[in-house]
């Protein structure tokens, strides 16, 4: 599992994810680059210094040879660290050379085999045969003073200073055996890694980020924006049957998706239109024979029998009306207008008994289709009175919604069954009997009406017993 800490920073949308992944990948790549670069720079500096040390040693031996100084005159060697000709001073590197009775051995020094090989090859070309040539890399502060100080002094004098005054930490140490048994030891300082190159690296990283991230952001936006529009459009399509053709935009893949959606939308809309026409026809065609039947039963002499027939027909008409209302909710001819919901509730409350409704002291105004909302509220109040003895109605405003709460004093509904109540033709009593009337579509219709107004219908059991229906509409 991914820890929560990380999840919190993980963006949820496509745009954020693309950018975050790309930025992280770039960062990792740049870190690897930087490490490789630093290792490279360090190796190069070491081999440069080694070359200097080797060439200085070769040079020195050559000079000694030329001036005929016997090798055994070891006093001379202590001065070898300094150039013999002043004019060349500037080019001289910070290398110190000394003659010893043995090799300078430093515990923590590490032999540089590749450099050793190259030095052996180079030095073997001279007249004096050096043996046991070895090159080490060693920390500066462990060098014997004789080898350490002259180059450091020169370093501090500024000639070899790096721009940011860093002291060299590493030295290249060369030791070789002269034919007479003496040992020649030489040390040179390795130029430290400079901060300037770190800054250069950062600048490079920044440039790369800008060069990659800006175009990437633009492309990601080009993909994400049409997708978001598509989502909004799909959501809207669910609410109303209005078609709004989405302009196709973005890369081909997204463009094709949008075009496919547009095509689907118009197909679905055609189907819905056909459904409405068909339902209208069914409604009309069923009502005509029902109306005929309703007229004909007046000739039935047996009055109780006639009354039963009439109520059966009424029931069929109620169900038919409910089905038609539900099916054509999106196409209701009624236009939305701003309505005083408090007055609406009060007007409906007068049709029922027993109802408790305390009139609010201010108005609750929302843009609604009053006939539909009235129908939804009538259903709810009716249910409360039938199943819960009475209806108590409250109205309040909450976070951009107006809530109308209808509570009763019945036995409530088992929590696990509440959601089922919104299914068409579900009833609170198990028998599905029609003894209490209604089509079994009441709650389905009421919820659909609430949702068509941007709100919802929620049923909850009250702690003090009974059921609470919260009908909300967007303000």
């Amino acid at each position, binding site marked *: 599992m991914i820890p929560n800490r990380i999840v919190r920073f993980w963006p949820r949308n496509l745009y954020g994810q693309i950018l975050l992944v790309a930025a992280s990948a770039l960062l990792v790549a740049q870190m690897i680059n930087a490490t490789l670069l630093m290792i490279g720079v360090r190796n190069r500096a070491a081999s440069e210094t080694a070359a200097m040390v080797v060439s200085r040693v070769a040079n020195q031996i050559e000079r000694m040879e030329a001036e005929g100084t016997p090798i055994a005159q070891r006093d001379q060697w202590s001065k070898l660290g300094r150039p013999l000709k002043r004019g060349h001073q500037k080019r001289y590197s910070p290398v110190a050379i000394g003659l010893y009775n043995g090799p300078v051995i430093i515990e923590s020094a590490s032999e540089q085999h590749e450099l050793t090989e190259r030095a052996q090859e180079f030095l073997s070309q001279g007249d004096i045969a050096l043996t046991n040539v070895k090159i080490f890399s060693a920390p500066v502060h462990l060098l014997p003073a004789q080898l350490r100080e002259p180059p450091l002094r020169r370093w501090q004098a500024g000639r070899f200073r790096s721009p940011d005054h860093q002291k060299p930490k590493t030295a290249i140490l060369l030791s070789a055996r002269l034919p007479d048994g003496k040992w020649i030891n030489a040390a040179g300082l390795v130029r430290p890694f400079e901060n300037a190159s770190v800054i250069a690296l950062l600048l490079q990283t920044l440039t790369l980020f800008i060069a990659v991230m800006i175009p990437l952001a633009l492309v990601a936006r080009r993909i994400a924006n049409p997708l978001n529009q598509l989502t909004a459009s799909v959501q809207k399509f669910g609410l109303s049957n209005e078609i709004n053709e989405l302009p196709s935009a973005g890369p081909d893949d997204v463009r094709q998706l949008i075009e496919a959606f547009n095509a689907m939308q118009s197909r679905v809309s055609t189907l819905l239109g056909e459904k409405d026409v068909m339902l209208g026809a069914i409604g009309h065609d069923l009502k*005509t024979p029902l109306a005929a039947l309703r007229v*004909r039963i007046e000739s039935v002499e047996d009055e109780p029998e006639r009354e039963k027939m009439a109520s059966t027909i009424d029931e069929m008409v109620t169900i038919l009306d409910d089905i038609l209302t539900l099916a054509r909710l999106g196409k209701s001819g009624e236009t939305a207008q701003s309505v005083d919901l408090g007055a609406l509730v*009060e*007007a*409906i409350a007068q049709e029922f008994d027993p109802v408790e409704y305390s009139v609010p002291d201010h108005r609750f105004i929302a843009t609604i289709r009053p*006939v539909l909302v009235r129908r939804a509220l009538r259903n709810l109040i009716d249910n409360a009175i039938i199943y819960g003895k009475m209806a108590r109605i409250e109205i309040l405003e909450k976070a951009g919604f107006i809530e109308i709460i209808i509570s009763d004093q019945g036995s409530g509904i088992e929590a696990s069954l509440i959601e089922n109540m919104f299914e068409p033709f579900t009833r609170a009593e198990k028998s599905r009997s029609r003894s209490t009337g209604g089509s079994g579509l009441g709650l389905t219709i009421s919820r659909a009406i609430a949702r068509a107004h941007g709100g919802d219908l929620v049923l909850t059991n009250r702690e003090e017993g009974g059921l609470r229906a919260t009908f909300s509409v967007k303000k």
Partner: protein
Amino acid sequence: MNKSRPHLLLVDDEPSIREPLGKYLERQGFRITDVADAATARSALLSYDIDLVLLDIMMPGEDGLSLCRHISATDGPPVILLTAKSEETDRIVGLEIGADDYVVKPFSPRELVARVKVVLRRVSSGKPKSDRMGERYSFAGWTLNSVQQTLHDPQGVLVPLSSGEHRMLEALVSRAGQILSRDHLLDLTRGREGGPFDRAIDNQVSRLRRKIEAEPKDPQHIKTIWGGGYRFSTEVKRL
């Protein structure tokens, strides 16, 4: 209703309704002429002295609304619409183009007869149709539409009223300036489904005040006249 047998014109394209309904109405003491379309209905209106038209809205060819508009424009007999649609908007349209009443299919024939009698009685008593129908009033920025049964406040917000409240407000507004006793108001507001009883008048008025008065405790529109009843005191314009 001077004739003992009022003559009804029944216009419906459905023989399954037209025929049994015609027979039923004849048994109830009406004289019936039944036709299947608007064109035949027009000629029947010319040839007979029709007292009332029962008119189906949904018909092939010219529909019921169009014929109703024609009858109303030519000052013809009263019309009761028979509609299959229960959508409120359709009923309102019917009333607005001059129908006197409507019943929604499937209707109880007994109820239809009751409605027919109410309309015929009103016509014979000489009450003009406009007294009940198609009036719009405005007062202090409010508008009251008696057909659509709507009340809008000065900001255009719909303030829904129960039918009782509506009848009460309409009775008061249409007789602005007159003092109306509780008995008179009871008479005026008794609806189809039986009106409120005496005490309810005061309740209705206080509900109305809460909705239309800025200060229900100090009403400016609906004033209580001591010992008399109520008076609507704000100037009312008929629209």
